[in-house]
């Protein structure tokens, strides 16, 4: 009798312990994500601060409990801008059971597009190439595509060009899929009525001197150079232009050249490298900058300070870029949890698709809300134009949407 009572007590105790120790559903879970990008090698000047942005925001999420008692685990792998390594990292992440993939380069995304669709995993890339969205339906661009940025710059030129003639532009692009990405849409916009003439498309090499190129462009009457590349070739170009006295002192100055560029051409690195030659450089992106004071400035700088980042990283727009990608991923997880759903790839895909209308997400880091739907794969649709004035990027006008590209 005594033995039976003892065993009964043990069973009750065991059941009690099991109840106490078993966590409630979805509480204390860790959600696995993965980021593969170029921390070393080509484009690492952008990849390095980007990775730090993702890392810091993920740490903030875990440290401050943005997801309640749940955590995020986002290992970051260097792929050295090599597609084969990106693929290996991706397969590794898939083996680990990630629910969302943060990817990087245009080439890597295009190469993995088939895999994204087969695995049915939501992907947020650092590349804004519209073609990735066409290639894989699980890709969600964080901001306006390169095409939108480029056409947006073209529209600004067309609207603000002085004189009755057609503005003559040259396209200065990176010799890769990334560089060529917006050309077709830009040409289509011109065919659709955007008033300008493309005089020359220049795929730059690794030139250390662009004097001949600039003289040629000027002799052809080029007044605007639209850049879609990374910072260093633009720095060489604008430095040479300043040396030759070809840089416009005001927008569209006659007989001179005004330089404009898309997201990866600008930022503080451009100013640091080009110095006074960067003055008057027009740049567009969907991100807010720390050089423009606002609530986001203190928030971003505090975040960087909290995790021991240097001033350069803290003020980098690619740091902002990384933070924003992480914000969107975490917000999708938060909303999925809030809806009482299990955080899976399919659920996150659905949550991201519903991120529109009154459910649009407004992070501090962008000039407009993040909206996605089954037919809209571009997060922030609006762009902000900036210009370098007295050694810092300053906003020009209000955020806008290109009219010739829907």
């Amino acid at each position: 009798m005594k033995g039976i009572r003892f065993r009964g007590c043990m069973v009750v105790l065991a059941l009690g312990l099991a109840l106490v120790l078993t966590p409630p559903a979805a509480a204390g879970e860790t959600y696995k994500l993965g980021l593969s990008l170029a921390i070393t090698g080509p484009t690492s000047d952008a990849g390095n601060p980007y990775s730090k942005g993702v890392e810091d925001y993920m740490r903030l999420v875990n440290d401050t409990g943005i997801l309640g008692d749940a955590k995020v685990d986002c290992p970051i792998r260097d792929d050295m801008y090599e597609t084969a390594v990106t693929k290996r990292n991706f397969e590794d992440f898939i083996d680990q059971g990630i629910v969302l993939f943060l990817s990087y380069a245009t080439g890597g995304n295009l190469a993995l597009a088939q895999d994204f669709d087969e695995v049915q995993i939501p992907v947020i890339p650092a590349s804004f190439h519209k073609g990735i969205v066409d290639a894989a339906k699980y890709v969600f661009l964080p901001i306006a595509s390169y095409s939108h940025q480029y056409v947006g710059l073209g529209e600004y030129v067309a609207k603000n060009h002085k004189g009755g003639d057609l503005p003559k532009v040259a396209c200065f692009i990176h010799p890769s899929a990334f560089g060529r990405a917006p050309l077709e849409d830009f040409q289509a916009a011109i065919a659709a009525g955007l008033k300008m003439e493309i005089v020359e498309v220049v795929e730059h090499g690794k030139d250390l001197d662009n004097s001949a190129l600039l003289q040629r462009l000027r002799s052809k009457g080029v007044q605007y150079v639209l850049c879609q590349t990374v910072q260093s070739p633009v720095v060489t170009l604008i430095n040479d232009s300043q040396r030759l006295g070809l840089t416009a002192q005001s927008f569209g100055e006659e007989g001179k050249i005004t330089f404009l560029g898309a997201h990866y051409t600008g930022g503080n690195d451009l100013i640091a490298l080009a110095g006074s030659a960067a003055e008057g450089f027009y740049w567009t992106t969907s991100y807010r900058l720390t050089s423009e004071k606002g609530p986001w400035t203190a928030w971003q700088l505090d975040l960087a300070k909290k995790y021991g980042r240097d001033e350069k990283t803290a003020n980098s727009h690619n740091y902002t870029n990384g933070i924003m990608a992480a914000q969107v991923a975490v917000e999708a997880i938060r909303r999925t949890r809030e809806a009482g759903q299990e955080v899976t790839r399919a659920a996150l895909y659905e949550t991201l698709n519903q991120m529109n209308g009154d459910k649009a997400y407004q992070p501090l880091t962008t000039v407009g809300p993040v909206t996605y739907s089954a037919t809209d794969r571009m997060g922030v649709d609006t762009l902000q134009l900036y210009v370098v004035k007295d050694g810092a990027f300053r906003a020009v006008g209000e955020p806008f949407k290109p009219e010739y590209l829907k």
Partner: protein
Amino acid sequence: MSANRWFATGNFYTTYRQEQRIFTTHLDRVLFGLFLFFLFVWPLFVSASNKHMLVINNILIAVVAVYGLNLVTGFAGLISIGHAAFVGIGAYTLAGTARAIGDSHVLITHAWPLMILISGFMGAAFGAFVGLPAMRLKHLYLAIATLSFQMIFSWTINFMTFFNQGQMIAVGRVFWISGQVGRNEHYLFWYYVILVTAVVCGLGVRNLLRTRYGRCLVAVRDNDRAADAMGMHPGLTKVYAFALAGFFAGIAGALHTYMFRGAGFESFTLHHSIIYLAMAIVGGLGTLPGSLFGPVAIQILELQMEHISEWAGTFLPATMNLATALRPLGFGLVIVLFLMFEPRGIANWWRICRSYFKLWPFRY
């Protein structure tokens, strides 16, 4: 020849034919058979992750490519620093065909062994063409000629719209007897295909080296004038060395394209040519086992450095980027130290190890 064909101690060859045997003893043959058996059956018992299967497949593809590089650089003594371009020729033969006729055309998805072979022959054709300057050039001059080919290849792929200007050209999933090879079995399927290819190519190279054509390569490397005086044709030998290298590279390129389900320019740059050369040197130039050891060593080293950097990143201060720098620094340092202290490559360790057992119980 030793009377005991199982445990022969020392060399007792009485004819050249005996010396040219692939396996010196029955034990060699059995061990090799067991090794092959192991390579074929381990995936049935061990469930490797996709990442690891990808790494293993990459190693085996590199083995096939390095067979070619070892033939031209190791055995024929002709330096080639454009080997990735030859691999690219094979890859783009397949990818270009897919672009022209559709990535799911029956030729791509069903006749894939034929496509791999065609890619190999295309590589051979380009190899022979690039090898033509070798008839008049040597050493650094020849290196520059092969480098030029690498640059021409880069330009062609990056600027021609037919090749999608270097962007990924996709190829469809292939079919096997059991139907379409899906994502779940993709890496395992290609493991077996690449393994069979690597074994067949390896035996092919081994047999080539037993023939007069193979010995011609070595003779021309050692002294082309002497080889000429002995009745060989040094020029033709050099051209066919390049053609053979191109063939193996082309095969490797096609396998790469099928395994990665497409071809993109990033995988065939000058950097990759240097990596192939490093594999051949670290493995052991002019040795067949070196073609196996080199790719294994380099790929594993790269992976380990990646893990070490990641681990170091957990405690090194983030502001100094030390963890990031650790990987290229460590990788480079290991290669340099290796070249300084073991210039004959890992194959030399293998030779020492074999010699020890061959002479055992005697010390020399």
